[in-house]
């Protein structure tokens, strides 16, 4: 299997996964969404809140704020050496104390660990009127997206099969398909229709070009055909900022690998016992 990036930034990546199966591509996608751990606020201690929002709504909103995560520094609370009581290696503590009139933003959450800050400082949490006040302590912990969506590390994360467009010799370059294509993948060449430079990956495989070709009266079979390649996949992975995309991808593969390795170990034990 091979990965080639067409774009790799801090929080977005676009790449093709070659020589893979649809099952593996989907497992990779599901692991990135649901099993890569991040920090998110889980416990909220409210000392005072006379804002317009109920305590429950306020704490729910706090939970959804993305937090920068250093996976080497935090462990899950259930796997921590403190035994789940909560310590500095399984919890990141924030305090928030704001008096109105103003808007409370995610940047008002003051972290105890300077590395575990909120990704963005300007996410609105609640609007305070005159004499309104919010004082609370929030505790973030590590968990994964299959537990609750607030722990998802990715925003947009998906794939599509690589499009394979074949243009037969009997294409008369009438241009009907070029006009019909909603993503401008095609252009008119010298003898026949051609794929526009660098546009192939934009194809959504809607097959409007095939329909247009048939409508032009070419015969029983369209001169252009679009098929998905079941061994190549175009991925788009977007991070919420808590982890760089590269880390999300490597830890997703690491998680799959760990599962496979531990399965091998367990099976070795079993066949040793028989």
């Amino acid at each position, binding site marked *: 299997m091979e990965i080639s990036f067409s774009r790799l930034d801090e929080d977005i990546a676009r790449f093709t996964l070659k020589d893979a199966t649809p099952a593996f591509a989907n497992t990779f996608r599901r692991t990135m969404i649901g099993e890569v751990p991040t920090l998110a606020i*889980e*416990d909220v*201690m409210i*000392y005072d*809140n*006379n804002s317009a929002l109920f*305590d429950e709504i306020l704490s729910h909103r706090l939970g959804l704020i993305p937090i920068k995560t250093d996976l080497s520094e935090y462990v899950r609370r259930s796997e921590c050496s403190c035994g789940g009581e909560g310590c500095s290696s399984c919890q990141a503590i924030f305090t928030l104390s704001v008096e109105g009139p103003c808007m409370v933003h995610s940047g008002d959450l003051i972290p105890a660990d300077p590395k575990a800050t909120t990704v963005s400082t300007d996410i609105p949490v609640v609007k305070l009127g005159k004499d309104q006040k919010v004082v609370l302590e929030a505790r973030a912990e590590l968990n994964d997206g299959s537990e609750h969506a607030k722990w998802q590390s990715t925003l947009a994360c998906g794939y599509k099969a690589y499009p394979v467009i074949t243009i037969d010799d009997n294409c008369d370059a009438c241009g009907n398909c070029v006009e019909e294509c909603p993503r401008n993948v095609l252009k008119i060449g010298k003898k026949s229709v051609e794929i526009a430079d660098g546009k192939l990956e934009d194809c959504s495989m809607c097959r409007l070009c095939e329909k247009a070709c048939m409508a032009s009266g070419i015969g029983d079979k369209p001169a252009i055909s679009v098929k998905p390649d079941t061994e190549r996949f175009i991925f788009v992975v977007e991070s919420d900022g808590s982890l760089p995309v590269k880390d999300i991808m490597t830890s997703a593969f690491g998680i799959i690998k760990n599962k496979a390795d531990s399965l091998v170990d367990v099976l070795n034990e079993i066949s040793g016992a028989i």
Partner: protein
Amino acid sequence: MAGYKCARCKQKVEIDLNVRCPYCGHRILFKERGAGIKHLKAR
């Protein structure tokens, strides 16, 4: 018992039989927030 506060005269009020401020007779009372810390799950 949670405390209440009269909406008009801002006096502290206890409710026994009637929902009514004993000082000014106003019938709108606000429930005061308890002193304790409220522990919630952010879900």
